[in-house]
């Protein structure tokens, strides 16, 4: 009731201020009249009564003011008047307002954009029920996370009691036929429990059942909403329908909801049960069931912590049971790694993200410092105004409130514009972002970003308003009126100098970071990948269909067909005009071919008696002319050629590093080795070739063995074609695809890209961070130089009289130039020194992103110092030049 009265009465007085004011003055007037009447009734004369009443009441206006100042509406009223005054102030100084608002918009926008991108990866819970209970479980290999075998999963799932459910999965790329062109889909081979672990059920149809995840079980799939929409037009009758994948019919049993975000494999659109064969799992280790190539995820029981789960799995790992025999390579003796899913997906990108967050905070700080600087300059000009207001009875608090209102209005304008900057920034970030960035689909400017931006805006408004406001001391308020035009550069400007120093220091930190990254990138791209990437087109060709199956009735027939198809396709490609050379390989350098499909154990004949000997090598199964097409250097011997057929002696090329580490000072040619299975004839080394960068320019993967596709123990079903072209390689892609399809139109061709593109993509994450730092660095440089210019130019204006006097007393132009330049350069120098210390500390964060450059790289530091010195010299020069032209006779007369 009373709240309602508060509200309605207040509102009434707010809406009709005049009536409310009149009522108050009427009541006060009436009070006075009653008092006079009472005085007269007591026998006083009318004059005495009036005098007595007035004395009792005091000043009528002050009583009215006292009564009127009651109520919440007065706060609103004074806020409104503050706001309109602030608005007028900003309107009257368009230059100041535009620069400040733009600066703030840039700072707030950039930080909101970065926050929006980082929030889903680092902070926002994953879009699953109780996401904190979902754990990634890895085997350990040389201390790092490594994939796990189905046999290990089977044992852990059976023995663990801290996990509700566990699941394993691996990529699955089935070819869907039946349309005009075959399409290779991205999918996942999963254990039946997969969606239960994740906690999301199909929106249509049902989840997989355990009875479907058995050897030779029914062929069923669950579709993503995207695939359902793209291929089946959201037809609800999709359930039970059969679709043709890899030549087999699969029944659709479910469709996932459109909100389902698959953080484990964002591109996956189709899922099928793994259907491993468990019949011989305890007796025969030489099967796919014991290959370490699965990723594993588990959901902890409620109330169980990650540590408890990890501890239990560790105990299981170190306590083998005889009903679960383990082979040597899946012994789990090095324990297991258990990470929360959120940490796991953010793991690789964390250093880059933290670096970017740090950078954007620096940019925001610089933006604030600049605006504070501008506000300080303005409050110096407004000292007279404040003095007048103080003389008229405004308290210091009231003036501070006015200034804070102004800066809040300013930051609110900046924040509004900043939301636009953030929206554009997020779009740019998504476009720029490396493919390794998790949860890309979840990145958007949403309500949380808005709240973030609002909070930043408010903080910025308060900070930028309070610092200049508190600069005005109460004594100054009183002195201001007398001295408003006479002040020389007083000691109050130390704050502004400190701000400029801060700005320069922050700019140094950002620029040094950007410089280090830039030099790393240069170093990286000057690394020789071991082949010539220009004019090289690559594409992945997959074989799919039952004609390639090796049936028991005709062993090897399918593989022979597969090999024949690839050979014919290669012939067709070589016939395309513009093609200089062409070849294929099972593993393509700098592509996203996963390590685990391309590395195999190998050992040389010389070490044969030592059962522990052996090492992992990249196995390249290549066609003749592969090394020639790639321009991989042949160091000795010969390359794989047409003579290396299935019936010829088994030939192998080894990489230079492998030759050096195994045969120091000896001739490796003619030596023999096994790659993969040991029950086959030895391969004989026929040549040594240069090392090739396989996974990244930054990583050495020197141990490699090249075999002829004719002579490997299995026919790869997917090969990458490499085509050396005369002109633009991308332009030839359609003709080459047609050539391959002319051999068999049902074989999918994917990942068509020039080698230059692959090279760029392989360093996308570094490039992404570098781009952001470059942008932030340039912004910082511009803002810092504007800041230096602003303070010097303000100080020259304030010191015009002093300069005039100096000139009149005989100071030369050079002296005056030196005076102003010296003032600016001293500030810059101090800022640079502090900034260098900051950069030394900040570069620690960057270490993981650097390549071939020390974080203390002298050239970068010197370059940044030189750059800042130059820019600030330019910024100082203009005010200094103005000071030189001060005419003493004019300035002195003005006074």
């Amino acid at each position, binding site marked *: *009731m009373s709240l309602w009265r508060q509200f309605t009465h207040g509102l009434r007085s707010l809406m009709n201020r005049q009536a409310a004011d009149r009522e108050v003055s009427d009541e006060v007037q009436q009070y006075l009249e*009653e008092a006079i009447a009472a005085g007269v009734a007591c026998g006083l004369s009318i004059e005495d009564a009036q005098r007595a009443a007035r004395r009792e009441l005091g000043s009528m206006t002050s009583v009215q003011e006292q009564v009127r100042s009651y*109520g919440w509406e007065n706060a609103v009223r004074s806020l409104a008047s503050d706001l309109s005054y602030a608005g007028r102030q900003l309107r009257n100084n368009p230059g100041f307002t535009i620069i400040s608002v733009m600066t703030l918009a840039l700072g707030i926008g950039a930080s909101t954009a970065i926050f929006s991108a980082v929030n889903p990866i680092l902070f926002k819970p994953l879009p699953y029920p109780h996401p904190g209970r979902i754990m990634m479980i890895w085997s350990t290999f040389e201390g790092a996370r490594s994939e796990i075998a189905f046999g290990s999963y089977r044992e852990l799932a059976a023995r663990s009691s801290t996990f509700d459910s566990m699941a394993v999965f691996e990529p699955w790329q089935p070819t869907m036929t039946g349309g005009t062109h075959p399409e290779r889909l991205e999918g996942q081979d999963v254990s039946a429990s997969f969606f239960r672990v994740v906690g999301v059920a199909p929106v249509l149809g049902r989840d997989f059942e355990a009875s479907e995840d058995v050897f030779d079980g029914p062929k069923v799939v669950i579709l993503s909403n995207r695939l359902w929409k793209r291929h089946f037009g959201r037809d609800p009758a999709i359930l039970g329908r059969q679709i043709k994948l890899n030549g087999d019919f699969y029944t659709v049993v479910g469709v996932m909801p459109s909100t389902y975000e698959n953080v484990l494999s964002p591109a996956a659109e189709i899922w099928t049960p793994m259907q491993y064969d468990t019949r011989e799992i305890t007796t025969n280790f030489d099967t796919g069931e014991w290959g370490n190539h699965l990723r594993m995820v588990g959901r902890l029981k409620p109330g169980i912590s990650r540590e408890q789960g990890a501890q239990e799995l560790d105990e299981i790992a170190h306590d083998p049971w005889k009903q679960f025999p383990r082979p040597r390579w899946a012994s789990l003796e090095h324990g297991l790694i258990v990470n929360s899913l959120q940490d796991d997906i953010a793991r690789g990108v964390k250093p880059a993200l933290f670096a970017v967050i740090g950078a954007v905070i620096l940019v925001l700080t610089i933006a604030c410092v600049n605006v504070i600087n501008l506000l300080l300059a303005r409050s110096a000009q407004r000292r007279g105004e404040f003095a007048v207001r103080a003389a008229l009875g405004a308290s210091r608090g009231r003036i501070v409130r006015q200034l804070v209102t102004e800066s809040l209005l300013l930051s609110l304008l900046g924040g509004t514009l900043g939301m636009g900057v953030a929206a554009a920034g997020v779009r740019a970030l998504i476009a720029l972002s490396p493919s390794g960035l998790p949860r890309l689909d979840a990145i958007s400017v949403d309500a949380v970003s808005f709240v973030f931006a609002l909070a930043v805006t408010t903080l910025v408004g308060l900070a930028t308003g309070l610092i200049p406001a508190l600069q005005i001391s109460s004594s100054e308020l009183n002195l201001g009126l007398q001295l408003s035009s006479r002040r020389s550069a007083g000691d109050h400007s130390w704050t502004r100098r400190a701000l400029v120093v801060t700005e320069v220091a922050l700019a140094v930190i950002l620029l040094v970071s950007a410089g280090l990254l830039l030099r790393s990138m240069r170093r990286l791209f000057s690394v020789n990948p071991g082949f010539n990437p220009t004019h090289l087109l690559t594409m992945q060709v997959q074989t799919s269909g039952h004609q390639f199956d090796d049936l028991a009735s005709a062993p090897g027939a399918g593989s022979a067909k597969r090999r024949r198809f690839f050979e014919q396709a290669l012939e067709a490609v070589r016939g395309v005009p513009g093609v200089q050379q062409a070849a294929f390989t099972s593993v393509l350098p700098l592509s996203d071919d996963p390590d685990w499909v391309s590395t195999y154990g190998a050992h040389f004949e010389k070490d044969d008696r030592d059962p522990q000997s052996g090492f992992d090598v990249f196995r390249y199964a290549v066609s003749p002319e592969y090394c020639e097409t790639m321009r991989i250097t042949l160091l000795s011997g010969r390359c794989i050629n047409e003579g290396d057929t299935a019936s010829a002696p088994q030939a192998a090329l080894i990489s230079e590093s492998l030759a050096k580490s195994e045969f120091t000072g000896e001739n490796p040619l003619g030596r023999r080795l096994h790659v993969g299975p040991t029950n086959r004839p030895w391969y004989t080394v026929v040549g040594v070739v240069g090392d090739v960068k396989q996974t990244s320019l930054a990583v050495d993967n020197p141990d490699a063995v090249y075999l002829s596709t004719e002579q490997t123990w299995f026919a790869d079903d997917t090969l990458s074609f490499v085509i050396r072209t005369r002109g633009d390689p991308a332009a030839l892609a359609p003709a080459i695809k047609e050539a391959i399809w002319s051999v068999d139109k049902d074989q999918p061709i994917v990942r068509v890209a020039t080698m230059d593109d692959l090279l760029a993509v392989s360093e996308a994450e570094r490039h992404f961070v570098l781009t952001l730092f470059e942008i932030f660095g340039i912004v910082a440089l511009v803002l810092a130089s504007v800041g230096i210019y602003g303070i010097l130019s303000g100080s020259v204006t304030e010191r015009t009289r002093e300069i005039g006097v100096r000139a009149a007393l005989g100071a030369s132009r050079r002296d005056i130039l030196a005076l102003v330049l010296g003032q600016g350069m001293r500030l810059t120098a101090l800022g640079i020194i502090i900034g260098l210390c900051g950069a030394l500390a900040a570069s620690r964060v960057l270490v993981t992103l650097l390549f071939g450059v020390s974080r203390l790289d002298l050239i970068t530091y010197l370059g940044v110092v030189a750059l800042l010195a130059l820019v600030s010299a330019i910024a100082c020069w203009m005010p200094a030049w103005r000071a030189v032209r001060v005419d003493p006779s004019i300035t002195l007369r003005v006074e």
Partner: protein
Amino acid sequence: MNEQNTDVIQGTLDMLILKTLSLEPMHGFGIARRVEQISQGVFKVNPGSLLTALQRLERAGWLDAEWRQTENSRRAKFYTLTRAGKKQLEVETADWTRRASAIARLLKAEG
């Protein structure tokens, strides 16, 4: 010039107003005069504080206000105690009595 303090004890103005109005509806000056009379000049109410307090009590819903003719046919803003106001008076009176008697006891106590 040893003037005695006639300020209303801090925090009691509301109670005094409510008590005064519990007798009959009154306008601002009437309340001030009545407080002065009954307290035999011990308390003098400051007009500004009184009028502000009246506004506050009205907002709180303890008083109703309305412009009416006085007995000497002038227009004045008359305040009436509401039901909520009566209740509030009881609360404040009880509270005051409790505290005043405590103070009285403390002052009486001798070493």
